[in-house]
């Protein structure tokens, strides 16, 4: 007898499904966030020439394609013998950094203002018809305008470094295909108000204050929303600084103890394992030496500010110190504080962009470096939503034979599930009817992680969530689909 399994049958992009099981006493027995995120890129990139990967694989996503573009290029730097991180020419590395920090700036702006701010500024239980970016624009027109322009600025940075705002071709194995001419630099540096870097830094700073104000007035809601201990994982610069582009692996536990430190990511598969569970197409990564049960971790802004020792830019460092003081220097495990962390990162991204724009290396012509070719390369980057892994192997004919991608949202799979569980238990225990605010609370928990599934679909406040409430017999008691 032969068993043929076709799994998954189709790709579903940007859709999440939550199932919540209640027992006889209306206690939440089980919750699951199902994400069907299978894309097939790892398979169909096989056989392609390796230099095509950064351009092909970035098509995974339209929100942070730069992350995939750069992670792939970093892996291929190793393959073409340019080494990792600082192996490139100064212009090559700095142009890529500029591209990446531009992306951080646009993606974080988009996430906070367009996707999450409606929950905070309009109220998570406000009318869903206006609890979206349009409602935000009506009530806070000035803020909404800033949100659009901040995103636009970040996209312009990408445009000048990658050639296009979305799906450019700037990073090539061993370097970059263009520098930043003075005239392009000046558009970003000295552009007419408000589209210049100084205004952007000011607005990013204002955004941090905006969240802090909100927090001061809603401390109980924010702190008690989904608060649970976890490990935290990210790249950090060799000296412990926050770095989105390059570094070594570090992980800390909920108390701040380093459980992984100073690890070269070329060896990531010695430290990371992925578990497959039958009910989700998304894998569950964990730290091998700690094991499946306790080795899961968070990635993204919350994790990054827990693993790094400091932020190498003035204003962001000041905000970082205030943020760290809140937890007495210990790791922050408050789910909704992710927004706070994200906005500090936004500010940092703005400051780094300015620093890079003032760097004359960006106008030099030494763009690419190559050395002895290797057959395997791993590239890691801190994408807006967390650590992104790209691993490629090639044959003697320059064709890709293996590709393994662990995307940021996959790394956050377990914590997202736990957050959903936390909120469901808190909001729904003893309830036979799900109210709209309860459903939105579940969405807020997921949104805090800025998962990829939200990017394409929540722009108008319509994250396509499918929430089912089961009784103990497995019968659906209530069903909500947005």
């Amino acid at each position: 007898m032969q068993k043929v399994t076709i799994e998954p049958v189709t790709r579903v992009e940007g859709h999440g499904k939550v199932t919540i099981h209640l027992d006889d006493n209306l206690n939440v027995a089980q919750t699951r966030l199902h994400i069907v995120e299978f894309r097939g890129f790892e398979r169909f990139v096989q056989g392609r020439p390796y230099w095509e990967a950064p351009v092909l694989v970035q098509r995974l996503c339209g929100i942070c394609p730069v992350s995939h573009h750069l992670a792939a290029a970093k892996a291929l730097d190793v393959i073409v013998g340019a080494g990792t991180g600082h192996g490139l020419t100064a212009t090559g590395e700095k142009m890529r950094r500029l591209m990446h920090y531009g992306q951080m700036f646009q993606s974080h702006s988009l996430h906070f203002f367009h996707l999450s701010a409606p929950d905070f500024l309009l109220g998570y239980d406000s009318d869903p018809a206006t609890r979206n970016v349009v409602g935000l624009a009506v009530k806070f027109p000035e803020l909404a305008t800033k949100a659009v322009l901040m995103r636009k600025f970040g996209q312009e940075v990408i445009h000048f470094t990658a050639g296009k705002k979305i799906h450019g071709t700037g990073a090539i194995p061993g370097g970059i295909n263009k520098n930043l001419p003075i005239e392009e630099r000046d558009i970003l540096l000295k552009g007419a108000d408000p589209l210049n870097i100084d205004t952007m830094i000011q607005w990013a700073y204002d955004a941090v204050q905006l969240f802090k104000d909100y927090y001061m007035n809603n401390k109980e809601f924010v702190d008690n929303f989904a608060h649970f201990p976890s490990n935290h994982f990210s790249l950090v610069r060799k000296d412990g600084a926050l770095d989105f582009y390059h570094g070594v692996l570090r992980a800390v536990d909920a108390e701040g103890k380093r459980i992984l430190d100073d690890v070269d990511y070329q060896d990531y598969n010695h430290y990371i394992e992925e578990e497959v569970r039958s009910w989700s197409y998304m894998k569950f990564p964990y730290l091998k030496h700690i094991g499946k049960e306790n080795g899961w971790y968070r990635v993204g802004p919350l994790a990054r500010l827990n693993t790094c020792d400091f932020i190498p830019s003035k204003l962001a460092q000041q905000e970082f110190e205030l943020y760290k003081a809140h937890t007495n220097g210990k790791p922050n495990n408050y789910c909704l504080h992710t927004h706070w962390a994200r906005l500090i990162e936004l500010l940092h991204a703005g400051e780094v962009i300015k620093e890079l724009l003032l760097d004359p290396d960006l106008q030099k012509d030494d763009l690419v470096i190559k050395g002895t070719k290797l057959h395997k390369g791993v590239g890691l980057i801190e994408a807006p939503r967390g650590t992104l892994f790209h691993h490629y192997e090639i044959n003697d004919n320059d064709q890709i034979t293996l590709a393994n991608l662990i995307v940021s949202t996959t790394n956050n799979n377990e914590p997202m599930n736990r957050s959903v569980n936390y909120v469901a238990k808190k909001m729904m225990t003893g309830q036979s009817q799900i109210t709209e605010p309860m459903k939105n609370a579940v969405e807020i928990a997921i949104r805090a992680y800025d998962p990829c599934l939200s990017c394409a679909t929540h722009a108008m406040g319509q994250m396509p969530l499918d929430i089912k409430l089961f009784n103990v017999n497995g019968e659906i008691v209530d069903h909500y689909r947005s």
Partner: protein
Amino acid sequence: MSEKIKFTIDGKEIEAEKGQLLVEVAAENGIYIPVLCHWKGVHPAGSCRICTVKINGRFMASCTTPVDANMVVESNTPEIQDLRKAIIEMLFVEGNHFCPSCEKSGDCDLQGLGYRYQMMVPRFPYAFERRELEASTPKIFLEKNRCIFCKRCVRMIKDEEGRSYFAFKGRGKHLEINLDTKLAEHMSEENARLAMKICPVGAILRKEVGFETPIGKRKYDHVPIGSEIENLQN
């Protein structure tokens, strides 16, 4: 001395030497007739038919037709525009032209024509042919799924002894471009560069140099295909 003749293209009177190829005379006079297989100075193949015009009421390929006195040529008419667009669509559905990850994007003649003729969705069903890639030689990566059978490489890329590196294999729907891998082991850098340059699509790729030209500096980033000819007139 060659005989001078007169004829018209879309009503415009043109003077040329008798026997010159129509497509070249048109270009010299600022009239763009698209080509994919033709290359000035190389014996015409007439294989792609994108340069089809109507001469005295009959459809003919302008790259293989010598001009003659009193010819009445129609080129820029709705009927011929649509016929060319249909040819472009056929070429797209017959291969696998995935522009988003193709390094020839922006420099590709087929893509350029797709834009110029405003191809949106092809009217023909996709053939989904699947041809193996040829990656085993040091200089060239041959992406057979993108070949449009123009035969430029077969006609133009030869070694010192005149042997072609490229040849067709198979017939009908099984036709495919092939590379003499033994010969190509020693292909010069110059030939590799020329092969990639003359290929009107992304079928012939030089190894390890993809995407070195930034967006904004590619051939058709700022002007549509054919502009270099039409601008002669302006």
